């Protein structure tokens, strides 16, 4: 494309330079700080991500910055980490949804919205802000659009899955297309698309689309699946579960409804890897959505899949889907009861290999901070004992909130998390899930209005 037109270029420059030399700013390239690699056998990279403020404190719309440290440094409270000034800008117009390989060496990103929306890229963490792009870039946008909801399936970092849904209201015009008074609402179709992606070789594995509708009674009342997310593979590896949100319209006017009865939590179950035969399963224990938000909402442990739900009128539950691919309605783990609060809302959680988990939540009593969202807390959860306890060794703050929190780094039974109120400094904390001992790690240096969204 570029032609060697040096003489012409300099000619034009002479014309343009004139008196405005002084006003032209020159941006010096600051060299990347080289960080020495201290490879030890048990060490791994811990990658910290921060979401920068856009227009308002805590909105995270200014982009996502990532920065890697060794797990030793992450545990060292004398180490300072400043991703907002020294980090690597993840190529996404809005908050990127990141995933890491189990060993922490690779960061997977599918950028969300904008000109790169739907692009899958893979980076090798080389420490600090040195992230080296590896493998070829591919786009899943033709299948699931430029704002895909994706996570990796826990199958040895081989596969990622992304989903898409669009809805269409069906109306019977009673044969009179010009008369609105005799029109009746029938139901709403949800067209869902699922794509699976080979994370290693960067290629598309499979894609299927289906049209799904809720049962007749619910559908006629105006209930429909409006959003899906969080594909999770079962232990046998033959079914894929997809979390769903159910919304409702007013069947007389087709406008969005509010203050309606919340249905039992639902999950779409598909054959894997064929992605065929979708069915919908419904919990008798929990009500509300299972599609989560930014962080992974359901995990396989000990042969079953444990799933958090949100917007449950009784407070969030951890729901269990058994090896038979049905909700286990005997397993009743209500977080309001376990935590002794009302309106518990799970923001992000993650179990370690021992069935013990760290869970971020807020509740009806949370006071609103600078970002307009309620104060958040961490709890230590035992999936088997169905207990949840507030972790008191982590400092809380009214401006500390985890709505956009994405990830915990798991190293065996240890869980790494980030704690920093919006716009204030904080620390990495390491929870030994076996003993419940909390260790204060490296200091997180914040920027005004920004916040940290996790450790990988």
């Amino acid at each position, binding site marked *: 494309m570029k*032609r060697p*037109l040096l003489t*012409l*270029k300099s000619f*034009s420059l002479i014309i*343009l330079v*004139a*008196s405005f030399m002084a*006003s032209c700013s020159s941006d010096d390239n*600051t060299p990347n700080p080289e960080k020495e690699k201290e490879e030890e056998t048990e060490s791994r990279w811990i990658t910290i991500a921060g979401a*920068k*403020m856009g*227009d308002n*404190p805590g*909105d995270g*719309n*200014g*982009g996502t910055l990532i920065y890697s440290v060794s797990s030793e440094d992450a545990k060292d409270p004398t180490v300072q980490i400043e991703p907002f*000034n020294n980090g*690597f*800008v993840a*190529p996404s*117009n809005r908050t990127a949804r990141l995933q890491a390989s189990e060993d922490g060496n690779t960061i997977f990103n599918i950028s969300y919205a904008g*000109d*790169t*929306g*739907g692009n899958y890229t893979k980076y090798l963490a080389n420490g600090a*802000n040195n992230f080296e792009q590896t493998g*070829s870039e591919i*786009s899943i*946008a033709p*299948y699931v*659009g*430029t*704002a895909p909801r994706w996570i990796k399936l826990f199958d040895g970092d081989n596969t990622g899955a992304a989903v*898409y849904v*669009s809805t269409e*209201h069906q109306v019977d015009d009673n044969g009179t297309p010009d008369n*609105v*008074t005799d*029109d009746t*609402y029938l139901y709403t179709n949800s*067209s869902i698309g699922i794509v699976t992606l080979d994370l290693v070789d960067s*290629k*598309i594995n*499979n*894609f299927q*689309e289906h049209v799904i509708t809720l049962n007749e009674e619910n559908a006629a009342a105006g209930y429909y699946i409006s959003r899906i997310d969080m594909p999770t593979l079962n232990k046998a590896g033959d079914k894929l579960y997809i979390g769903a949100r159910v919304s409702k319209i007013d069947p*007389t*006017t*087709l406008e*969005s409804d509010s203050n309606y009865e919340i249905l039992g939590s639902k999950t779409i179950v598909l054959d894997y890897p064929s992605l065929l035969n979708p069915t919908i399963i419904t919990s008798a224990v929990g009500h509300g*959505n299972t599609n989560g*938000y930014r962080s992974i909402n359901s995990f396989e442990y000990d042969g079953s899949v444990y799933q958090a739900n*949100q917007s449950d009128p009784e407070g969030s539950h951890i729901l269990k889907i058994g090896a038979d691919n049905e909700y286990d309605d005997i397993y009743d783990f209500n977080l309001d009861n376990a935590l002794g609060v009302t309106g518990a809302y799970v923001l992000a959680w993650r179990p370690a290999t021992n069935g013990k988990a760290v869970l971020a939540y807020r509740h009806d009593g949370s006071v609103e901070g600078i*970002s*307009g969202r309620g104060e958040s807390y961490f709890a230590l959860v035992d999936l088997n004992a169905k207990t949840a306890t507030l972790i008191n060794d982590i400092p809380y703050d009214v401006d500390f909130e985890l709505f956009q929190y994405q990830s915990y780094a798991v190293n065996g039974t240890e869980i790494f998390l980030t704690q920093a109120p919006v716009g204030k400094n904080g620390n990495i904390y390491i929870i030994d899930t076996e003993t419940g001992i909390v260790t204060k790690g490296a200091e997180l240096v914040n*920027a005004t*209005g*920004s916040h940290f969204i996790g450790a990988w």
Partner: protein
Amino acid sequence: MIRTFLFFTLLLIIPSMAMIAQENSISGTITTSGEPLFGASIVLKNTHLGTQSNLNGTYSIKKIPKGNYIVVVSYLGYQSISKTISINKNRVNYKIDFTLQEDAKKLNEVIVKAKSKKTTLETKGFAVSAINTKETSLRSIQTNELLNTTVGVKIRQNGGLGSNVQYSLNGLSGRSVSIFIDGIPISVYGSSFSLNSIPPSMIKNIEVYKGVVPGHLSSDAVGGAINIILQKGSQNNLNASVSYGSFNTFQANLNGAYRLDSSGFTVKASAFYNYSDNDYKISGRTIVDIAPNGVETPIVARRFNDAYRSNGAMAQIGFTNVKWAEQFLIGITASDEYNEVQHGTFVTKLPYKARFLESDALLGNLKYQKKNLFIKGLDINSNAVYGKRNRIINDTVAQAYSWTGKRLVGFDGEYIDYIWGSQNENGPTLAKIERKVSSIRSGLSYALSNNHKILFNHVYSGVDREDSDELISLLENTFLQTSDLYKHIYSLSYELKAFEEKFKLNAFGKYYLQTVKNTQPVFNNDNTQVIDEVYESKVDYTGFGFATSYILTPTITLLTSAEKAIRLPSENEVFGDAGDNLLANLTIKPETSNNLNIGFRLGEFDIKKNGFTIAANFFARNIENRIGLPANADGLRESDEFVQYTNLKNTAESKGVEAEFYYTYNNNLGFNFNATHMSLTTVNSGVESNVPNVPLTTMNAGLRYTVKDFIQSESILNLFYNAYYTDEFSFKFAAGTNTTGEDEFLIPKQISHDFGVSYTFPKRNFVFSFDVKNIFDQDVYDNLSVQKPGRAFYLKMNYIINNF
């Protein structure tokens, strides 16, 4: 089209059957050394009668009562001539030709200079750039390109002919800038009648007001206003042009005016046609071919879904320069547009195919202008437009295409059809927006004396909007809420001239009143009828400002202007949009901006045959109460909750300097250079940072050289060269000082060059021009990473008849 032309022909024939002249006239040709002299002034001494010679050197003065007169002909740098004539008959045209001699002793004399209209406007005190279209109208230049060379103005265009354009004045753009045609907001005419479709030849001149907008152009724009003044056409003329060039771009334009001297009966008509395939080549990181398994190969692609067509016509009929009105015209404007859409806001790896927009507009207008109404010094000026315009978005094709222009093949070897059933991810649509629009602008001015003048102006604009979509059920269409917007802006200005007209002041106050009417259809109690529930919101606000100039010496003028400008909240900012989960905020406050300009103008200095002018302006803008969405908006929307627009706490500030330099030599050579450098900052993450996606340093240079008697005697050859420079800018806030990965969001420094030549044939009826745009085929971008056309060639032919 054919019908329109027939209509014009009729309009042109009818008046020729009208009345016979009652008064006398004089006409003739002004020449110098055998060549016609353009722009010489011809006045009857001690009367108000006078004119200027046109391109052919001809002139005519009409409606001359019986009596004895002294005709004075003058032109800067030439010796004036006068001649006494006596007119004692009725209905006679006296033919008098003059030949002027160049004035060799010019430097030794005291020169009393008449300012050109451009200079007069630019020394009134406002930060204004007046753009003359005389020369450029003969070239293959779009009106937007003309504006782009103006200091402080940056056009941000999303591609080729017909693509979406944003006007940026000193860094503020979008809704901050209002565009007017003859004082009527261009938005009234709809997108089919944009600056893309108005050829420069229909435009008399363009006024660009930066930050401070005079009372007569009242609008709620915090950034400034651009006013396009169309040819008045009270002289008989016909002007036709056709141009053809790269990307199958064809443009034709016809405009004419006919005035019957005896009665003042006037007919003006114009028509335009624009077409382009816009199939220019683009490349870049998202321009890739995608293999079935997803592997991507960068390619150079031709845009394949970007054709644009617009055509339209205007006709006006009435009386001009008669006893009871300077102008009384009734007119009609019709236009229609087809615009294919190649991609969304961003250029992604998935181009659109078969998504297009169609719009049309039909408007009637009435214009009345009278000086010295009832009493001397009282002038009235009124302009009203009423009509309908429609817009359809058509996107129903689900088939996926790649940048190769071919269908996209999926991982299973099958063609991909998008799951969302359309090109845009929002799903198939045949959305239709019907608007009834009206705008009335009236002005009353009264000159208390030569030095004091009071002006009262009122602008009303109203939009009744109705939305529907054929692809959704009637039930859903019925319950779509609609918003109507009515705006009144009143302004009172006071103009003062003092110290022998060395000091000029224009002080003004503006009162804004906006009513938004929101209609929500609901069923009645027994579901047998749909009734409308109507909500109203009224916002009012007051702003004020001034512009002043002081002529220190004839070549040094100082200018200052300031305004507390405001932008009223839009309909969805007030009433929300249920479809977009936006809640109403009835207490939202308007955005305000304190705007300040301080400048000077030096010149014109004349040293022998050299003339030059230097002007500079320092500007500052401070925007408060910016309207935006709150922090948790994304999260709330994500969980289907509602959000509302609010006034944001952080302000935006713009500071900068712009400068221009003009140089002429012997009327043959013209050079101009202008540059703008500014900062546009807002508080981001507690740090003052540059607002992204705004170029902060731009420069333009232009060179014109005229050769007379080239090949044929009496011919004129003009050579043009333009260069444009835009500094590197980022389309995202820089995250930190030491971060990596930022280059992903950078738009590199750009320099592009245009060259043009025009040749005017001896009889002055034909002008041919040839233009090369972006000679060195550089990659140029205005917005994000949307690439604009590379090298392109255009040929244009103009045909002009005057005084038929």
